[in-house]
């Protein structure tokens, strides 16, 4: 027997501006029931987050144009209509935090950096409950204990930046649940977390929901997460709900074309990986042996010096010509440090790293001098994670892509323009795009520009550091396919740093799994993903959500 606690009917939200308004969501209707998880899926810009914020009536600068949001007080049998309330009024504020609480994607920036975790939780409790300061503190400690934070009596007085990512999200949950709300809105709460941490948080949320009989509104773009936790699913596209239904029905008998497309994109990566046409050649381009790098710790004020971080510990890998080698691991496992060592950014304390260049020579990558003449940088290029941060907003696309050619003194003038045009067309953008600035492009298009810049010098090796993690599912698949095509065409070797197992399985030939600076397992992508040997790899693979509600394994 489930009770409806929130009814949303015909909700529309629009952003007003000088020339009329832009619709963010239109005619959205759904119910939330106690004890049930309703997942909202859709790609970025589909209106999921706006819907969530509209429920709390915090949509400025947008306005709620029409529709009703009825909050049902089950015990008292009362109903409150939220959309008509003054967004700053006392009535809606009594609902926020007390009846409906919310947690967000980025737990670091969602917590105030200058207040302790305890101050922020206690504030919420004092606002809505009739307790004194000492009582609120006791409750806050209890809340932290409920989200399984070790030593809550001490952890309560720490600042958010002293917590790890997973702990911060737990603290956010503790803050949200401090006042025992009926509804918890979770806006992509695990997107920024590692897959094993994500599994823990999902499990925690499910457990808390069961004990407290809450309704959870869970927003995500990850169909795997939906399959793991949802009872009901709402699929959104361009601000409208295109499909609603129980999770099993949505996954196994989807009716709307867009739902099918989302499912296909999610399953596509899990099913047959790309055809590995040519076997990788045996010519080794990069080989490292026993790389070790420790960062000395910073000396903290009033604190004893801690032991430094062993970022790389005896790392030996080999990248062969034309091969895609995946480096997988959680944040802090040393993946990015390895890439930076190979690019000469850091020099390891021990070990060797050799690059066999096109002219038959060998370069020692642990020696800064090897990079001075720029030859290594001409043959080894990088693609970065953040397609927004990695392109200079003040340069045109032509300048961005042409820069490596210009710096290398290879081309200039009309020949340079022609080459940039060819490169743009090669990555699937019109040559006319070169006149414009990066802000005119979407995330996926920007990543294509980054790829065009990387292949401009006809490199032999591309180091892609989380190159697809910032992209939506369907865009991600397109970028991966583009890289695969380029690999075949240009005979590229790609060192692909990733944390997403699905992507790795789809894209990589071989995989090295890193954990705390060590390579714990190396093998072909299929071996690693389907039959992992190392206990850590097994845990990592087991934490990956499977986009099929009939195969739940994380929270059951």
């Amino acid at each position, binding site marked *: 027997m489930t009770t409806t606690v929130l009814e949303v009917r015909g909700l529309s939200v629009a952003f007003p501006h000088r020339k009329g308004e832009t619709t963010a969501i239109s005619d959205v209707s759904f119910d939330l029931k106690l004890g049930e998880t309703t997942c909202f899926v859709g790609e970025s810009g589909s209106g999921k987050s706006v819907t969530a914020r509209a429920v709390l009536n*915090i949509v400025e600068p947008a306005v709620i144009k029409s529709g009703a949001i009825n909050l049902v007080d089950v015990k008292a049998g009362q109903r409150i209509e939220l959309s008509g309330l003054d967004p700053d009024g*006392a009535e809606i504020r009594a609902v926020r*935090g007390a009846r409906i609480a919310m947690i967000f994607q980025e737990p670091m920036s969602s917590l105030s950096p*200058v207040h302790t975790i305890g101050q922020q939780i206690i504030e919420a409790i004092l*606002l809505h409950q009739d307790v004194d300061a000492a009582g609120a503190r006791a409750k806050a400690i209890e809340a932290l204990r409920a989200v399984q934070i070790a030593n809550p009596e001490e952890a309560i007085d720490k600042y958010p930046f002293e917590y790890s990512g997973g702990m911060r999200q737990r603290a956010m949950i503790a803050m949200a649940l401090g006042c025992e709300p009926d509804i918890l809105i979770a806006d992509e709460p695990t997107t920024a977390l590692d897959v094993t941490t994500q599994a823990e948080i999902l499990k925690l949320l499910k457990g808390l929901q069961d004990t407290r009989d809450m309704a959870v509104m869970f927003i995500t773009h990850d169909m795997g997460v939906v399959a793991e936790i949802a009872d009901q699913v709402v699929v959104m596209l361009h601000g409208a709900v295109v499909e609603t239904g129980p999770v099993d029905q949505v996954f196994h008998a989807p009716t709307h074309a867009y739902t099918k497309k989302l499912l296909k994109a999610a399953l596509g990566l899990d099913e047959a990986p790309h055809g590995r046409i040519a076997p990788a050649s045996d010519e080794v381009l990069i080989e490292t042996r026993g790389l070790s790098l420790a960062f000395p710790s910073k*000396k903290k004020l009033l604190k004893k010096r801690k032991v430094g971080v062993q970022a790389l510990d005896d790392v030996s890998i080999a990248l062969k010509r034309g091969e895609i080698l995946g480096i997988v691991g959680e944040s802090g496992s040393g993946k990015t440090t390895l890439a930076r060592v190979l690019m000469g950014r850091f020099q390891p304390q021990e070990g060797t790293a050799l690059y066999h260049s096109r002219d038959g020579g060998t370069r020692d990558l642990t020696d800064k001098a090897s990079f001075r003449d720029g030859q290594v940088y001409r043959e080894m290029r990088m693609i970065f994670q953040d397609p927004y941060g990695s392109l200079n907003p003040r340069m045109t696309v032509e300048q961005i892509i042409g820069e490596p050619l210009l710096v290398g003194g290879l081309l200039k003038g009309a020949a340079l323009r022609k080459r940039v045009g060819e490169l743009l067309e090669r990555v699937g953008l019109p040559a006319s795009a070169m006149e414009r600035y990066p802000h005119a492009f979407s995330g996926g298009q920007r990543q294509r520009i980054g790829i065009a810049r990387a292949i401009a010098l006809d490199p032999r090796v591309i180091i892609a550091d989380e190159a697809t993690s910032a992209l939506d599912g369907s865009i991600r698949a397109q970028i991966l396919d583009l890289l695969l095509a380029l690999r075949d065409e240009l005979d590229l070797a790609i060192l692909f740093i990733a944390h997403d197992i699905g992507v790795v399985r789809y894209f990589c030939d071989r995989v090295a799994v890193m954990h705390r600076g060590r390579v714990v397992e190396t093998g072909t992508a299929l071996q690693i993903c389907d039959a992992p040997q190392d206990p850590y790899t097994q845990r990592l693979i087991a934490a990956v959500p499977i986009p099929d509600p009939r195969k739940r394994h994380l929270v059951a």
Partner: protein
Amino acid sequence: MLSYLSRRLLTMILTLLALSVVVFIVIQLPPGDFVTSYIASLSASGESVDQDTIIALRERYKLDAPVLVQYWAWLSEILVGNFGYSFEMQRPVSEIFSQRIGISLAVELTAVVVMWAVSIPIGIYSAVNQYSVGDYVATILGFLGLAIPNFLFALVLMYICYNWFGVTITGLFSPEYMNARWSLDRFLDFASHVWAPILVISTAGAAQLVRVLRANLLDELNKPYVLTARAKGLSRRRMIWRYPVRVAMNPLVSTIGWVLPTVISSSFVTAIVLNLPTLSPILLRALLSQDMYLAGALIMFMGLLTLVGTLISDLLLAWIDPRIRLGMVGAN
């Protein structure tokens, strides 16, 4: 904490030493020395100069010795607390200092307090109500305040006060209180004069602070933690003061570092136009007349104030922002 402080103090001393070299070089740059300009000013006023006096003066202050000796003569005296003698004003430098420093501090610090008291509420209002009528008014006034030079504002103020109200607002005391001891009457007289320089000095500063605070706060208002605070059910006013404003104050606090030296340097022209008995006109006069000991001491003092101000703002920042406090890196 103690080791951090001692390191900071040590670098401050080294910086001051380096500054003393620069100051000395700058003082030595113009041709001639203070004795020649002293003679020039005396003969300009028609007095004759005794050749023996000149020689005695040059001897006493080692003006004919090598530069390094002169530098050392100057520095070693400062180290034992003797700032030398002002030829132009015919008094010891320390006496000029002690006479004027109190008034200088009073005027500038009051101006700073007024500046903050005015700019913080306006800055917050401007950011929270971005593009409202009030924001536009604040923006226009702010740009006016930034664009109008202080001395012009001071002149216009003097003109208006004199023409419309018949009040002269130059100086800080009426003639009868000029050399009187402090009393309630003298204080009231002081208060009736001091508002004008404070108004002039604080307008430009306040305009700048409003712009800085507005820009910072606009950045902070879009941060997710603000949404978190609202989702908790906090009232808007309390949420804004407690979260984004607190973070947005950081850059303002770091401006304290440059507020202190303005005690001497900022209000040059204002002080001259309004005829204020503060330190800044003295510095200008000392530089013009190559009054080496006075100018050197004043510039050194400004340097000291800058360093102390920076230290204070660093400590304040560490106090209000735990990220800085807990991340303060050691000297290695």
